[in-house]
């Protein structure tokens, strides 16, 4: 399978890339890791006339902590995230999630920016970003703009990114001690997209009260979904089997899975409940060791 012909540009600076994106408008697409876009181009689901390859732009692969935030460059690859010690120490959820994304070769190419910008509810990073309350930094002709993650995912394969904007960074607030995070997805085989996936971050105070909770769901809704009622069921009280069961129940009710080869709607709702329970336990476990 061979993509339709296109013009290839590989700018060496961000400014040049943005200029090219403006020049070609709707005809142009950004090429990052290429592991969602190139398969779509081979199937001719995507037929861009111009590809703007951002892989040769320096300064977009950082993973650093600054002013209470973890900052991850849009071009950071999964394989780099998987082995970023400080990031994993702060957010063990990244070890969970990267290990479950595709396979080692795909992780050598795929980038976190591409994973989010693709806007696919089956991708795994979106739910994690919801749980961690991330902010997306987009850079365009008018400079940079901060997009809260709750305003980022719009619909099927669409995000808040405008034409000519490049996702340059993700910022994640570093939570207080007593915080833990965890992700798991049910998959039919290693490297498959999720039948259902759940990301949880939870902060438990010294008094045993849940101070904050973030819960994101993968592939059980047309867009990545925040389980709002589930979060509320946990916050402001001690974590109990009862509150966890409530959170699990709400998530299974509030998601919107469709039946497909991976399972029926009922099955997926049931699996969301199971995973929410397990991930709250796992995140709380990690919180108590932190």
């Amino acid at each position, binding site marked *: 399978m061979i993509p339709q012909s296109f013009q*290839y540009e590989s700018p060496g600076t961000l400014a040049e890339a943005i200029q090219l994106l403006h020049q070609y408008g709707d005809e142009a697409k950004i090429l990052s890791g*290429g592991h969602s876009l*190139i398969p779509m181009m081979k199937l001719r689901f995507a037929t861009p006339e111009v590809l703007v390859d951002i892989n040769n732009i320096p300064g977009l692969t950082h993973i650093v902590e600054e002013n209470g935030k973890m900052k991850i460059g849009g071009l950071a690859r999964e394989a780099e995230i998987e082995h970023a010690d400080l990031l994993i120490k702060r957010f063990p959820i990244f070890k969970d999630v990267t290990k479950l994304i595709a396979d080692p*070769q795909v992780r050598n*190419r795929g980038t976190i920016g591409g994973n989010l910008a693709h806007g696919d509810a089956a991708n795994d990073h979106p739910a994690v970003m919801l749980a961690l309350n991330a902010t997306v930094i987009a850079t365009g002709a008018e400079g940079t703009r901060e997009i809260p993650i709750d305003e980022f995912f719009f619909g099927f394969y669409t995000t808040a990114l405008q034409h000519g904007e490049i996702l340059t960074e993700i910022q994640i607030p570093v939570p207080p001690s007593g915080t833990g995070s965890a992700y798991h997805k049910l998959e039919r085989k290693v490297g498959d997209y999720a039948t259902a996936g759940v990301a949880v971050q939870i902060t438990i105070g010294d008094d045993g009260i849940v101070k904050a909770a973030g819960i994101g769901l993968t592939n059980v809704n047309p867009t990545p979904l925040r389980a709002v009622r589930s979060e509320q069921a946990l916050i402001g009280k001690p974590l109990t089997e009862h509150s966890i069961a409530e959170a699990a129940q709400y998530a299974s009710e509030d998601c919107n899975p469709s039946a497909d080869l991976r399972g029926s709607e009922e099955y997926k709702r049931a699996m969301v409940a199971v995973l929410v329970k397990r991930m709250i336990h796992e995140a709380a476990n990690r919180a108590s060791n932190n």
Partner: protein
Amino acid sequence: MLKEITVTVNGEKHTLEVEPRLLLVHMIRELLNLTGTHIGCDTSSCGACTILMDGKSVKSCTILAVQANGKSLTTIEAVAVNGELSALQEGFKENHGLHCGFCTPGMILRATELLANNPNPTEEEIRWGISGNLCRCTGYNNIVKAIIYAGAKMRGEELPSTEPQFV
């Protein structure tokens, strides 16, 4: 519009004029006649097209040839040096790590990076590490044995038994 690219393949520099839509695997197989790199699925799933790009294992069916501009590639043709098998090749041979051999070039290049990053992997790490490579013949057990064997050989340790195990 053709683009000029320069790539180093198995230590040799090539300057080529390619269409931007040319996939790296087709450049390797059709322009350079290195047909040891296989196309299995053509959908980024099977790993038969795995090569090393600047030392990292990648699926060459999902990279554009123009993206390899300035990079260094290694294909299966350069794994044996002066006719001498690499530790991995010897491991696959001694342990029946291949039957039809279709997946083997990809397996060996993937395992090359695996052992470079983790010279003494556990069986679980090996199985996880080759999860992007499908084999329709061996059932994987002998591939895992082959990689364990190659690791031991590269570490200069006593070689594990190559006798078949019945499980």
